[in-house]
């Protein structure tokens, strides 16, 4: 039936991922060590995660609020109005 070649490709895809994805050692900790010293000093926030996504990387958060705003107005555009 038609599904066989699709399943074959999926199995090869899984084998490739199982073979090549390795997570044995943690990432080098340049960012965390930098944050430990002068995170609170620079941003004043004790919660380092908040200091990252609202301080150092605030632009990503801006981009993401755009995505939220566009998605809400998209839902409103498609479902909101009664034609």
């Amino acid at each position: 039936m038609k599904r066989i070649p699709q399943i074959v490709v999926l199995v090869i895809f899984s084998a490739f991922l199982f073979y090549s994805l390795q997570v044995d050692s943690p990432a080098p900790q340049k960012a965390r060590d930098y944050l430990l010293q002068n995170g609170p000093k620079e941003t004043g926030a004790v919660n380092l995660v908040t200091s990252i996504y609202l301080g150092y990387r605030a632009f990503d958060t801006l981009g993401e609020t755009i995505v939220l705003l566009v998605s809400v107005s998209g839902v409103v555009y498609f479902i909101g109005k009664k034609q």
Partner: protein
Amino acid sequence: MPEGGIVLFIVVPLAGSFFTLLEKIWPDRRITKPSVLLVFLSCLLILLIYAKPIFQGEEYRIILGNWGGPIGIAQAMDGFAWVGLFLVYAVTFLALIYAFSDKTYDSSFYFFSLILTSGMAGVILAADLFNLFVCLEIVGISAYILIAYAKKERSILASFKYLLLSSLGISIFLLGIFGIYRNTGSLLFSGVAGYFASPTGSARETALILAALIAGLGVRTAFIPFHTWLPEAHSQAPHPVSALLSGVVIKVTFIAVWRLSVISGSLEVRNFLLCSGTITALVGVFWALMQKEIKVLLAWHSVSQMGYIIAGFGAGTLLSVSGSLFHILNHALFKSLLFLSLGLVIILTNEDSLKKIGGLGRKYPLLALFFTFGALSIAGFPPFNGFVSKKLIMVGLKEHPAAYWTLWITSVGTLASFTKLSALFWKKLKKQPLSQSTPLRKGDLQKNSEEEVFQISSMKKAGLNKTAAFFPLVVLSILCLITGLFGRPIFEMLHFLIFRQSPSGIFNPWTMENLWETFLVTSLGVFSYFLVTSRGGEVFQSRIRSLRLSLDWTLVFLLAGFISLGLTVFLSKLP
């Protein structure tokens, strides 16, 4: 100009979109159109201010908000980004002016297009992997909504297919970011360059990372294994949106692919892009020749012209790489010119299949003129810009004879399909077209229904404001002509922008040998046009058209492309 100003390119369209939202609250005060004009004029102005330093080889790299440490978001503006931004703002501005002419687009349309513009500027300026991911998501989500803007069944289905395909692609892209962060601890492009210079991960992990990054972006650039969504999505979108999508959105993601493959400096990705680009070009033009709907034919042409650009970049020689950047600029101009002018044809006759329209040339000579400008430049005729950039790519591809001859056949196919498309304007239908004014008697309708007949309504009846519709077409045609005539100086400027040194040999497109080659291609093209529209050809066309790819097959194609890219990189990295 302080380098802090780079972020203005992304933020000014956002501020503009605030005013389009205001119009929802006070609908009587018309602030959308002036705010769109203001946004684009100020962006183009800032771009001009940056032009002088950029063309002297200046480059700006900033960390957003001047935060210290390795965590801040980096943005980079170099000559290459300047050309991309010029492309984004010029073509989007003209497409939105075209949309001014049609009253069906209300303020939410301009809101989504402004967000799309700022997302594209974000993708071009990003020098940080995760920021590239967020900007790609902004471009994606506003593209999904704009494709399904007309709320017709087919456009919603096309937008849903595109949504699923590119969300799967973006998840694979996230896998690539995961691999980079795990090995380098930073998300900056410089970190990526450092990693690929001396990969700390094993060969198989580098293969996964590179394949994931290129495949994730490849979905949006539509080269061969990932191109399946493009014809449906671009042909079902409203006319200015399909001009925007074909002209600019796929180019912007290709600029990101360009950046990443230059940084990774891996030869396997270049070779993969070369052969996948040539196959895309051939497949694109073959399917385009088979279509009977105008916009599907044009959408397949975007696939094939993207094949030219990717093959040009994949070859890697000085001439072909700058040729492919030149073709990015030219293709955006003439493809949006074609989409916009044929969009007018579709609105006027409200018919989009080639078989049902004919003899428009007499009724609308201006439209026919704009169409011929676009068609001649896409087919690569001498005075127009397609000729210069295609010749550049072909000359650059001389060392790869297989790619050279495939692209040669593709240019023949391009010419054949555009003679087929131009039949709209000169081929007489069996029945004279009924103009809107003649009253339709009941008997008249049955008699004509079997022959192909259509009503041409005038611009006013179709509710189009003539100047706003024709202004972008005029500007685009002039731009196509100028970039064609001043081909060489523009080529030298682009060459300097990419490689920081002026081109070695003198490239002169106007040699007798090139003109003779164009003549040969033209005659072959017209010959194959008649071949295709012959009796046997029509049967063959309908059989090819009936081959439709279902949604899960497109997703399987995506995975197959990712696997093939990963295996080529892995096998070449084995010691």
